[in-house]
């Protein structure tokens, strides 16, 4: 597939600044790369590494100002892109260069049908209007795997699932058979099994049309699954580039090596675990949460079972991982265990006492002993409070934990415990990176000296290299403080390192439960196998290079 053709796009020494208040910020610094027809180039990097900005300039999607191309050239098929006027740019966009984005719900206009939005591609480039276009759009939707396309063409974006919306975006992008498709984190917002189908679709389309694919991702597995060549970006610079297999098997730059080592592999060293778990700390029995649908007096009563008859046991010092895709009911369990929602039925005993019977003072006491760390370290902290007041807030609520004279001392202790510095106490949340903020969230959770911490997708929003650091911190605290965790995630590889036992959830039910290694090595339930298979395999190791065209679209999303 590595076509020996000359590159269709060549970017040479590109430097882009962003003018924020005061000094310009260098977003892209002396970046060069090219891509040939039929080839897949992956731009790999963590958030803020400049990968989206460099491709945004290719499509003229960076607003100038605040963006400013300081130097460098972008040549597409003999045309200098930076010298194009609006009309020339418009001619290329959509027809010869197309793009899909991370979050298709936000990137589709909510008030127009998907059919109309796809048809606009044809109309904008003078490729017909009205009924003739409609037929083309139906065929496109069929091609990207939307069932009942001739009916669904008149649906609005919110009436599709996340995976289908991305399929619609892809249909829009490939409408005029572009020479280059730029995919900016196309599967980041999707569940793993859906991600696999979308990647498959992109590979099939590339094989059919011979287009060049530039894929931006922070996900090493996705990168490995798709790339012919890789460039790795960090801090606006290209730190490594080369054939995918070489970069993965023999990374030369220190940053790339760090990135690679952060990915949890089966043979990666395990984080320390408690050898002998103690007595039972949490016992959940037949826990259910049902929601009634249809509120009016005349609408039919239906029930949605968010959590359906879930039972499990957690011992002191142990970690149980709850794994499932979005909507599987994992977070509902967490919310009930913390008494944020009431269950429909079932019981949960915490150290022998029924959680759902706690009232008043007893409930306060219980909440002290169980803490939660949320997914979004940005949203779960008051931006106006400094770190000191964030961490010491539990002591203001539970007066008996710590006398006020010791607060400052203890804040410093906690900050050091989670790997931050004493002088961080005076700063505000926005002055920290995502990983640092999650450390603050953990310090806040530790402040009330809990016995159990519920982590709801606690590392999902973090870059891979940061994810492992936070996991290691949690494991270390488990060892030192004898903590227990309920660790909720959609990301299977991560729990392999960390959890003692895993519950796999699907549609509110536990479909499989087992010791971590056993579950990974010999999964029993079909759904678990699907989840494990869905973790993409590297492209250079795949044995099925040529699936029959159309096969990849049969999967329902």
């Amino acid at each position, binding site marked *: 597939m590595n076509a020996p053709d000359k590159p269709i796009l060549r970017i040479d020494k590109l430097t882009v600044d962003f003018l924020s208040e005061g000094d310009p910020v260098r977003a892209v610094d002396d970046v060069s790369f090219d891509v040939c027809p039929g080839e897949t180039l992956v731009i790999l990097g963590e958030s803020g590494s400049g990968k989206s900005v460099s491709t945004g300039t290719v*499509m*003229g*999607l960076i607003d100038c100002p605040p963006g400013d191309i300081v130097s460098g050239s972008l040549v597409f098929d003999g045309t200098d892109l930076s010298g194009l006027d*609006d009309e020339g*740019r*418009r*001619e*290329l*966009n*959509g*027809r010869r260069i*197309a*793009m899909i*984005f991370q*979050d298709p719900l*936000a*990137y*589709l*206009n*909510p*008030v*127009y049908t998907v059919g109309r*939005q796809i048809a*606009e*591609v044809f109309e*904008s*480039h003078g490729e017909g209007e009205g009924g003739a276009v409609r037929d083309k759009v139906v065929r496109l939707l069929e091609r990207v795997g939307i069932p009942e396309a001739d009916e669904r063409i008149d649906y*609005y974006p*919110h009436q599709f699932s996340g995976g289908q919306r991305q399929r619609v*975006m892809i249909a*829009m*992008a490939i409408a005029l058979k572009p020479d280059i498709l730029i995919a900016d984190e196309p599967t980041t917002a999707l569940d793993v099994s859906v991600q696999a189908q979308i990647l498959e679709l992109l590979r099939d389309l590339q094989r059919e049309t011979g287009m060049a694919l530039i894929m931006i991702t922070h996900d090493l597995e996705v990168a490995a699954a798709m790339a012919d060549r890789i460039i790795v970006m960090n801090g606006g610079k290209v730190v490594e580039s080369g054939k995918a297999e070489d970069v993965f098997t023999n990374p030369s730059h220190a940053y790339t090596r760090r990135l690679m080592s952060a990915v949890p592999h089966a043979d990666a060293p395990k984080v320390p675990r408690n050898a002998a778990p103690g007595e039972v700390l949490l016992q959940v029995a037949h826990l259910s949460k049902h929601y009634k649908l249809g509120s*009016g007096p005349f609408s039919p009563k239906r029930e949605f079972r968010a959590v359906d008859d879930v039972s499990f046991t957690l011992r002191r010092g142990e970690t149980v991982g709850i794994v499932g895709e979005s909507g599987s009911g994992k977070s509902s369990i967490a919310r009930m265990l913390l008494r944020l929602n009431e269950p429909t039925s079932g019981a949960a005993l915490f150290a022998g006492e029924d959680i759902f019977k706690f009232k008043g003072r007893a409930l306060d006491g219980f909440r002290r002993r169980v803490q939660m760390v949320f997914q979004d370290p940005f949203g779960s902290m008051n931006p106006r409070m400094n770190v000191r007041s964030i961490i010491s807030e539990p002591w203001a609520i539970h007066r008996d934990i710590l006398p006020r004279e010791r607060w400052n001392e203890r804040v410093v202790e906690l900050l050091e415990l989670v790997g931050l510095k004493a002088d961080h106490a005076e700063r505000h949340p926005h002055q920290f990176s995502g990983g640092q903020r999650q450390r603050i969230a953990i310090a806040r959770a530790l402040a009330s000296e809990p016995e159990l911490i519920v982590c709801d997708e606690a590392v999902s929003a973090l870059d891979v290299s940061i994810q492992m650091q936070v996991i290691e911190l949690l494991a270390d605290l488990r060892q030192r403080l004898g903590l227990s965790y309920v660790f909720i995630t959609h990301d299977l590889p991560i729990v392999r390192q960390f959890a003692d036992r895993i519950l796999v959830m699907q549609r509110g039910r536990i479909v499989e439960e087992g010791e971590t290694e056993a579950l990974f090595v010999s999964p029993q339930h079909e759904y678990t196998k699907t989840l494990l298979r869905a973790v993409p395999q590297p492209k250079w190791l795949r044995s099925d290079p040529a699936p029959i065209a159309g096969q990849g679209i049969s999967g329902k999303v």
Partner: protein
Amino acid sequence: MMLGYIGRRAYHSVISVIGLLTLVFFLTRLTGDPSALYLPLDSSLEARQAFARLNGLDQPIYVQFFQYLQNLMSLDFGQSLRQNRSAIEVALEAFPATLKLALVAMTLATVLAIVVGALAAARPGSLFDRVAGLVSLAGASTPDFWIAIVGILVFAVGLGMLPTSGTGTALHWIMPIVVLMLRPFGLLVQVVRGTMISALASPFIKTAHAKGMKRRKIIFGHALRNSLLPVITVAGDLATGLINGAVVVETIFGWPGIGKLMIDSIIQRDFAVVQSTILVTAIAIFIVNIAIDLLYAVLDPRIRY
């Protein structure tokens, strides 16, 4: 679904209209005895009592109120003391003049505001944007009675181009409409500009650029449609204000609308007419609000009732 929704809204509105009419019933009767205005100053006590008896004003107030409610049930809204005919007829006769004025003023204000606001938002900080900002701010904040009086002074008295008041020719419409639409126009330009700027920053606008769409289509097709909801909310609110009777403007320009009728009837203690004008405007405002809700559902497919 939709009919059920309208039914529910109507039911709620009936309750609030009854509450409103109750309040108005007692408040108007606080203004004093009508016979003091309708009979000659030197009329005898017997004549006054006869007048009161004839119009039911000799009864205790709660009996009058009960009687009023009973009559409402049979759609009898009472007699106008001043014109000696059905009060609701008087109110309905005055209403079209107000409605026409409000409709023209609001349509012009909304259309102009959308165009000006959208163009200002397309190039924030440009000369056009700054001029539009200045004009709209002035329009939104200058009191209408002042503009009306200065307008009469300049265009009617000074230049003699336009009539001072009344209806009749097309020229009579110009000043009332311009004065009425200035405030809605000014406010709406600001709203349109604000919502358009955030709509133009939405991710789906990036998609439209990536598709290679024309800039004009992106602004008026994609961004505008998404920024209309808040505009309609504000426009609806302003429209109810105009339907409510542009009391000041109608009075200044001698416009025979419902606002002027209301003021005149209050001054004349023509209770039945005051109550009827309020009933008519309340129903009109209810219809406007329903129309806005339905427009929401038309404009945004995610909204369902």
